[in-house]
């Protein structure tokens, strides 16, 4: 484990962790730095950034504090993407485990289902789902997970299939360990690391899908989101492009951080797996 951490601590891994920590900090401190309702009018509309110390990032068309919106948006982004990643991993792990361990007809059926889900353009699927189920936190989370569960399911299934062929599984079988115990105590824990590294990809994707949904007005209507801020800025894009630019930069920084962490984690874990065949 320590070796994995050491390999993780490369330039990219550290930069990603620091950036992501900043986003988390922003989300945690949102209520402290910018107490009150971020959607309420706070001052004169359309104050330029860096011109008024009370509104470091300026105000929008309706006089809302951009900084406050940005901080609260970090919270919304982290909640949605975190929840989506959790749901995706849970669904993916469940389906991957079923397909890998039970095999046969069930495996075939589940894999065809995965094929079908992978053929649907994810965002159009999310759009259709949210528009039918109505926009809410739960529907956005579900919509994101619908398009993403196939990757962890497939990876886990492949891992399980390859682990099941290894000698140590035979050894446990010879020792008389019951199959279910072998499956959940010995095989699954060994199959999980590559699935966990997928978490970064899932989170990054969730952030982007959520932003796009919010941009189209289909995000969680009860919270400020970066996507909605970008959409809001569109109305005055000629005179105040910063209103769309700033939340977009926040999205890019967050996704970049998550991708950097994912790359570093992937490399760290991959190196370990190469060493111990």
């Amino acid at each position, binding site marked *: 484990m320590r070796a994995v951490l050491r390999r993780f601590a490369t330039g990219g891994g550290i930069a990603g962790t620091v950036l992501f920590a900043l986003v988390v900090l922003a989300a945690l401190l949102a209520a402290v730095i910018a107490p009150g309702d971020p959607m309420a009018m706070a001052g004169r509309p359309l104050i330029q950034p860096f011109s008024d110390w009370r509104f470091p990032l300026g105000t929008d068309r309706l006089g809302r504090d951009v900084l406050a919106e940005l901080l609260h948006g970090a919270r919304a982004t982290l909640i949605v993407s975190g929840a989506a990643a959790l749901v995706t991993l849970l669904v993916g792990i469940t389906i991957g485990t079923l397909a890998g361990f039970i095999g046969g007809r069930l495996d075939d059926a589940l894999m*065809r*289902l995965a*094929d*079908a889900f*992978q*053929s*649907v*353009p*994810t*965002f*159009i*699927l999310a*759009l*259709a*789902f949210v*528009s*039918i189920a109505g926009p809410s936190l739960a529907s956005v989370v579900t919509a994101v997970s619908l398009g993403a569960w196939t990757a962890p399911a497939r990876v886990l299934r492949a891992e399980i299939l390859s682990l099941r062929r290894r000698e140590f599984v035979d050894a446990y079988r010879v020792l008389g360990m019951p199959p279910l115990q072998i499956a959940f105590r010995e095989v699954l824990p060994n199959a999980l690391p590559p699935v966990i590294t997928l978490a970064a990809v899932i989170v*990054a994707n969730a952030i*982007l899908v959520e*932003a*796009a949904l919010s*941009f*189209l*007005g*289909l995000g969680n209507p009860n919270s400020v989101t970066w*996507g909605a801020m*970008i959409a809001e800025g*569109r109305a005055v*894009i*000629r005179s105040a*492009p910063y209103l*769309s*630019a700033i939340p*977009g930069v926040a*999205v*890019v*920084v967050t*996704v*970049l951080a998550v*991708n*950097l962490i994912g790359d570093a984690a992937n490399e760290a874990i991959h190196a370990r797996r190469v060493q111990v065949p």
Partner: protein
Amino acid sequence: MTRILAVARRRLLHSIPVVAIVVLGVFALLEAAPGDAVDAYLVIGGGDAEMIQRLRQEWGLDRSFLARLGAYLTALAHLDLGWSVAFARPVSAVLFERLPNTLMMMAAAICFSFSAGTLLGIAAGARPGSLRDRILSLVSLGLYAMPSFWLGLMLLVGFAVKLAWFPLGGIESVGMGKTGLARALDIARHLVLPVLSLGLIYLALYLRLMRTGMIEAWRSDYIRTARAKGLTPRRIAFRHAARNALLPVVTMLGLQAGALLSGSVVVESVFAIPGMGRLAFEAVTQRDVPLLLGVFLISTLMVILANLFVDLLYARLDPRVAAEG
């Protein structure tokens, strides 16, 4: 050639259950949507209880679930995707009118991101760790983290609003009566920014994949053989190294088809392009479920077709893909 045909046959057979699942899924969503087609129709037209009854009967909505499914499948077989309330026209008519614009945009975006991405990936992978490689890797990381609609907006602000190099939106200048080459050029000018916003992200992905592939290829024995044969550096880089590094990139093309269709929803909205993506959004805002699911179905079929094509291309590029198995 027989090998490729065998691969085609296998992949086609494989697609059948996938298409079936998708069609069933769309039908399930149609059923799950609040209200049925008659409700939606009445919102626009209005009508009395008797008319409701008659319409329900006419459209088969009062029948059992299985009968409704049967009716839906029969209609699908006749390319009938239902009635779009928002446009007061058949869904298929609206769809096929919008399709060419999206296809054109997608084709341009794929060509752009694939060619530029692989070329830059070759350049970056030639000397890993060099300044050029670091800069390219950083740029691709940044691009890869960008939401396409935001990239589109920023390009719009920079190149259409501030610099006025490109039009603000639309697919072509209206009312100018341009024809032939002039019209093609006009459309091309309109497509530059949307294609960039869609393509740059995948360019980043191709660059990264190609870079990794090239680094791996340079280390392999067959490159040492190529050098021992005294081939020109150009031939070694392109015919031997890049040809192998290309394989993982090609597998991504199928994925990109889906991502482009997804991206076209937001990008067409940003650039006001009357394509299929914007149609999906219009269907959402007008609560036109049959239209939305029509877009859903057609775009999924397009992705399945694209993947079929990519599989064949891959089999063509990699002789090790076996005919059977």
